[in-house]
């Protein structure tokens, strides 16, 4: 199958569009995933900025309460399902075949199918803003929160069709994720180049393997719960309809049985990015590769047994709470091992502080904070105070923004030269880094305080005498810095695509297979099938006197 069918009968722009729409090339699909994810990132960020404007001071009337509720629902749903997921799937899509030295994914057409399901699922969700007119006050976008707790989602309380858009949009894009997850597992297990045994894979590929397995395990329960909810809403079933004997707790169990592995599905790719970037910019091999693999697999397993820590306040028995506190604390251990190994990789190295490394260090520093507040939240009595408060909002933004988004920017600065053939500007990149660092901490640091001072999440306004004003004002001011940082990023990408320095094949002097082919790689990836003897094939090539395979 030709990977880029040219249609000479169409005008050049239409012909190019046609090429992208019908492509089954893993690299083009990867780019499409990431670009779509970044567009949704701007939309989700705009929603967040509206909320911070409304909350900057008590009693503001920037948006109506119902609109505020739609904003946080769409913001959360967008960032998890339409930003985190596509960017991780896109980067796995682009990089895994290159890193394991193969031509494409195992199922290229399934790959395209997965992307388009995601794309139209997201479009369907956002079409609710126009299409979901319902009864008075309940039309327009979903307003049930991103975890859509029953029975608020039942017809009694959520009239109109906004909740149906939420269900169907996510279900469609979720099927796309499952398809791509299966594709990734198959590709990694079956299509590695000669010599690449499992323990010779770059850690990136290992982590993406565990991640893809988690997707395949965790997404179907969500789809099942959504089908049940759809039955409740449309066919008169009573799974979650409390008035007819249904269970509100059942939804929470089903949702979080998906939802907590989902958190690890989102953060594991961050681990994957920095596990490649930190060694290259420290000029040292990753410290403790076998233990890193073991920690990744352990996280994968334990992540499926911690979901009740989202439900500590729901009144389960002390024994159940204690059990899930134990599993939640336990998952901190392999995560801690990863932190130690990354820092140990930096020790004794020759650290180059280019933009990808700066963002990776930002990841380390901030993810550490988010991880430790996560351990705090595992302590059930403390959780009784701060769960569903701004402390939790601060915590998961340190993980998903300070951790994941910073690592995504690290990855973009690192692999953009490979994808586009041009370097991003280091100067603009550093402006973006510092502005984002300041803005991020200014916005999300104070949230821990307002949470411990008693501010619940998801409130559209608050009373003047609560002592939360200054913390909220600081949070809102931080948004300005973040917006400026993102403007620098967009400008950097546009400018560099037009006149960035040509990158060459291997601008960072790196070690994995994707840097052995041209930038951008040809549709067929490698002119000859690569052969590897170690985890760092390019190191072996550059240092024939001192190759890795002697030591691994």
């Amino acid at each position, binding site marked *: 199958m030709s990977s880029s069918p040219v249609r000479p009968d169409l005008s050049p722009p239409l012909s190019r569009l046609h090429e992208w729409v019908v492509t089954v090339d893993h690299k083009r699909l990867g780019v499409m995933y990431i670009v779509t994810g970044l567009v949704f990132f701007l939309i989700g960020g705009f929603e967040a900025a509206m909320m911070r404007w409304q909350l900057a001071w008590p009693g503001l009337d920037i948006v109506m309460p119902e609109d505020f509720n739609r904003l946080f629902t769409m913001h959360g749903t967008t960032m998890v399902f339409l930003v985190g997921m596509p960017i991780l799937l896109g980067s796995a899509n682009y990089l895994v075949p290159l890193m394991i030295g193969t031509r494409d994914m195992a199922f290229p057409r399934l790959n395209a199918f997965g992307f388009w399901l995601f794309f139209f699922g997201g479009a369907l969700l956002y079409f609710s803003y126009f299409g979901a007119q319902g009864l008075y006050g309940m039309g327009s976008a979903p307003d049930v929160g991103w975890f859509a707790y029953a029975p608020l989602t039942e017809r009694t309380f959520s009239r109109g069709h906004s909740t149906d858009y939420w269900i169907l949009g996510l279900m469609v894009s979720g099927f796309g994720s499952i398809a791509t997850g299966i594709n990734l597992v198959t590709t990694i297990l079956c299509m590695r180049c000669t010599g690449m045994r499992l323990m010779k894979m770059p850690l990136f590929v290992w982590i993406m393997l565990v991640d893809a397995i988690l997707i395949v395990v965790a997404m179907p329960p969500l789809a099942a719960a959504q089908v049940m909810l759809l039955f409740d809403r449309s066919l008169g079933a009573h799974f979650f309809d409390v008035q007819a004997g249904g269970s509100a707790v059942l939804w929470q169990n089903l949702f979080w049985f998906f939802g907590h592995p989902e958190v690890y599905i989102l953060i594991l790719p961050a681990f994957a990015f920095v596990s490649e970037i930190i060694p290259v910019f420290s000029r040292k*091999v990753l410290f403790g590769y076998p233990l890193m693999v073991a920690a990744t697999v352990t996280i994968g397993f334990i992540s499926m047994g911690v979901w009740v820590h989202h439900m500590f306040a729901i009144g389960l028995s002390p024994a159940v709470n204690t059990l899930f506190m134990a599993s939640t*604390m336990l998952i901190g251990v392999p995560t801690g*091992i990863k932190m130690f190994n990354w820092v140990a990789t930096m020790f004794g190295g020759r650290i180059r*502080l280019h933009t990808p490394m700066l963002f990776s260090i930002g990841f380390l520093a901030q993810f550490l904070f988010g991880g430790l507040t996560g351990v705090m939240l595992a302590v059930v009595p403390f959780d009784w105070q701060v769960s569903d408060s701004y402390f939790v909002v601060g915590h998961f933004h340190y993980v998903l923004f300070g951790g994941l988004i910073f690592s995504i920017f690290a990855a973009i600065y690192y692999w953009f030269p490979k994808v586009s053939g041009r370097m991003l500007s280091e100067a603009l990149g550093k402006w973006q880094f510092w502005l984002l660092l300041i803005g991020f901490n200014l916005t999300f640091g104070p949230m821990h305080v307002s949470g411990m001072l008693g501010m619940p999440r998801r409130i559209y306004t608050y009373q003047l005498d609560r002592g939360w004003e200054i913390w909220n004002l600081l949070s809102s001011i931080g948004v300005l810095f973040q917006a400026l940082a993102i403007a620098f990023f967009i400008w950097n990408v546009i400018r560099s695509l037009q006149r960035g320095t040509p990158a060459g094949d291997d601008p960072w002097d790196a070690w994995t297979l994707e840097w052995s082919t041209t930038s951008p790689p040809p549709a067929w990836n490698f002119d000859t099938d690569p052969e590897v003897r170690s985890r760092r094939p390019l190191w072996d090539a550059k240092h024939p006197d001192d190759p890795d395979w002697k030591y691994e």
Partner: protein
Amino acid sequence: MRQIAAREGSVALFATLAATCVAPALTAALVCDPSLPLHSGTPSMFDPRSAPAEMILDITWLVIAICAVIFVVMEGLIIWAIIRYRAKHARDTAGDTGEPPQVYGSNPIELAWTVIPLLIVFVLFLVSARGIFEIDKQEPPPGALEVRVVGHRWWWEFDYGDLGFSTAAELHIPLTKDGQPQSVFLTLESADVIHSFWVPQLGGKKDVVPGRTNYLWLQPRETGRFVGQCAEYCGAQHAGMLINVVVHEEDDFNAWVANQQKPAHDDPATADGRDLFLSTACINCHTVRGTVANGTFAPDLTHLMSRSVLGSGVIANTPEHLRAWVWDPQDAKPGCDMPAMKLTREDTDRICAWLETLH
């Protein structure tokens, strides 16, 4: 690209990491400094006035201490690595431009940083587990005052079943009973969706789940007014579902109970306001004991004037606010279930004049 940007000094790097810690650390210091006068209205978990809240705070300090030490050590290591092992510095000392020694790992070191976190987690687990079993009571302690709390969109009903009355928006509890500390045992139920009862100074939160009965134990240490609010998103006016808890001296509480047990005050001077109220749809939702108004969808108004707030706490209970509320509740609490009753200004005044006699 091998060249190193020399402009960023280690100072700048230190700033990176410092900035990461600044907001949380500085704010933590501010919150924890007892000399700083927190506003009396701040529902801070660091200012506990009830036994379970104190027990939670004790555990919290331990957790914060452990996590703070780990945080400082790890950030210190990161900063140290950057300063010590920046390329320029290393090349100066090593005297060549080649790659540094490749260290693939170390079993003893990796074992150490697997086992030590396990031990820390184990200690934390034991302390927290004990706390869970001490605080989370499933049965009322002997002699406890029992109150049934019902979450409604978007207000709280407090049903003092044993004492024979029900009220809303403000939970009144005594500090002592016969001179001994008084335990309060709340039975939490929901009339519609999930809510969560959270008054940080008195205890942790507990979700209020339809189809399920939950319990929450409080034991106040001090008199005063403590604020909190619904902590589980429940729809348009989630933000307006506030909680006020008033802790009384024993005698004051008994006097309050005695007043609440009486039927509504009947003042002939405002009888026309009462008759107007009883002839409108108000009575479909509100109860005023001693009249035909016996609706259960909205707060009991029998002793409306004994409460200091309206609309579940979104506004203070003053004559002006009361008139504005009856005229159009959607102004103070947009999205709430009470509609503007389309009364004339004169009728509003008459009804409010009567409501103001309901002490």
